[in-house]
């Protein structure tokens, strides 16, 4: 039985940040000063990174891998504090992530990498196989053969665009409550963009919240429909939609 129980009465609330203060001295890192915001089920938040800024630190903070200096971060009503490691690992199993930088366990094949989170969290093998097959077919388009071949190879031997596609498959096959996309269009084939957009629309309609990082002109703009919250960074500090509007 799941040990994650929504604490808040608001079942739509996926991620909540309350007066969070965080940040390193590195100019690559996004800093937070008394930052408060919420992401509800089905919402999409777009965070525009400035040049040389990286999302890794902030995402680690949202996943409870780093801790804020002040304030609270809650995922589905549960915080990341204390020694309830089992609960924290279970909470993270409900978050899908497309990484920038290192994204793979190099000693496993791409297929094993994709199946690992689901199998580790005891989803039956047949379900995992079907899930992965379903999303691979939907997202890969005409590149399905290349993707299926990549499943049998180690990440080091697979081309970057196919690997990025495999990252999408892994993140979405988890059926996450929160999908974190860190510069997800990097090296993705142009012909696959409409499929990715429609996938985002579908999973949002089923209640998945999406947090999408992109960096200025370097990343393609996805023609996402529906309401979008836009968070931005100013002087290295993160500003929510409301704060941005006030500024």
């Amino acid at each position, binding site marked *: 039985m799941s040990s994650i129980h929504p604490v808040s009465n608001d079942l739509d609330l996926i991620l909540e940040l309350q007066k969070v203060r965080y940040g390193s001295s590195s100019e690559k890192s996004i800093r937070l000063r008394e930052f408060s915001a919420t992401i509800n089920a089905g919402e999409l938040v777009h965070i525009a990174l400035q040049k040389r800024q990286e999302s890794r630190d902030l*995402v*680690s903070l949202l*996943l409870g*891998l780093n801790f804020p200096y002040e304030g609270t971060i809650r995922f589905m009503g549960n915080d990341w504090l204390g020694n309830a*490691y089992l609960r*924290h*690992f*279970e*909470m*993270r*199993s*409900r*978050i899908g*992530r497309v*990484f920038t*930088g*290192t*994204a*793979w*366990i*190099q*000693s496993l094949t791409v297929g094993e990498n994709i199946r*690992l*989170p689901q*199998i*580790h*969290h*005891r989803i039956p*093998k047949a379900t995992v196989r079907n899930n992965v097959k379903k999303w691979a077919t939907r997202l890969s388009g005409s590149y399905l053969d290349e993707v299926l071949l990549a499943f049998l190879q180690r990440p080091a031997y697979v081309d970057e665009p196919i690997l990025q596609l495999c990252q999408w498959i892994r993140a979405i096959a*988890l059926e996450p409550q929160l999908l974190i996309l860190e510069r997800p269009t990097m090296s993705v084939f142009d012909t696959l963009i409409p499929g990715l957009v429609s996938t985002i629309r579908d999973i949002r309609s089923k209640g998945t919240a999406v947090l999408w990082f992109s960096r200025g002109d370097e990343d393609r703009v996805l023609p996402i429909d529906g309401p979008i919250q836009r968070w931005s960074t100013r002087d290295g500090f993160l500003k929510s939609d409301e704060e941005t509007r006030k500024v």
Partner: protein
Amino acid sequence: MPLRSVKTYQFLTSVRSLLVRGLFRLSEPLGRLFIRRCTNIANILSILWVTLFLTLRPRTWSPSVRAIFSRQLQFTAVDSIPTALQLSATVGVLIIVQAAIWMDRLGISTDAVAPVLWRFVVREAAPLLACMVVIGRSGVAIGTELATMRAGGEIEVLDSHGIDPMTYLVLPRILAMILSVFCLALVMAATIVVTGYYVGWLMSVIRISWIEFFTDIARNINGEDLVFFGSKTLIAGGFAGAICCTDGLYVRGAITDVPKVSSRVGIRALTAVFIVSAILSILFYGKLLVFKIG
């Protein structure tokens, strides 16, 4: 007071103050070294304790952990069997030649070689040799692999997916090392005894039939041997596994630090195995070399 005595007194005083100052200066690095050693031992013991706790919890054994465990056991135990056989056959020959020479010199009948050979092999040689094979073949590989994963950010990938690195990476490797040392030590003990007998028989050092030889050994097996063998293989294997994993995971900085870990991990694990083995011998025999303790 005569002048000479004053000078002697002054000389002694200055020597004493130099010694005191030297001791004070030495005490800081010594204290730091002592604290670091204690912290290391505490880390290893806590890793072993958590491993034991997680092993006994059925929830730990997810299909992915079982897969990693069986893969590690295959690599550490099964694939090491040829190396273990070669090494133990060579050691068997060396032991039997030495035993024959010394028994001849001491005027003891060479027929008494069986119990001596058995005790030495089961209590000391086989567990140590098995540890050496496992550390040399797998321990260094484990340390290097974990250090590479850490430096390359792969641990964060696991963490992000809700996979506990302790459960997925450390536990199966430590358990596989413990079991491998135990099983390989059994194989090596048997090989040493069999090779020892046949080489001794060919050299006419052992003049009894193999049935008599092995019956003699079987008669000499007792509970103490099993306690020795079990504790030396399981505890030493656990320490070796924990050191290889912690050294790998505590790497700081970039991928260029990984070779340092590779060169350090084997030596540290082997040193720990010899120390653990010596401490267990002292505890079991109640003796330190020839001095009785307690």
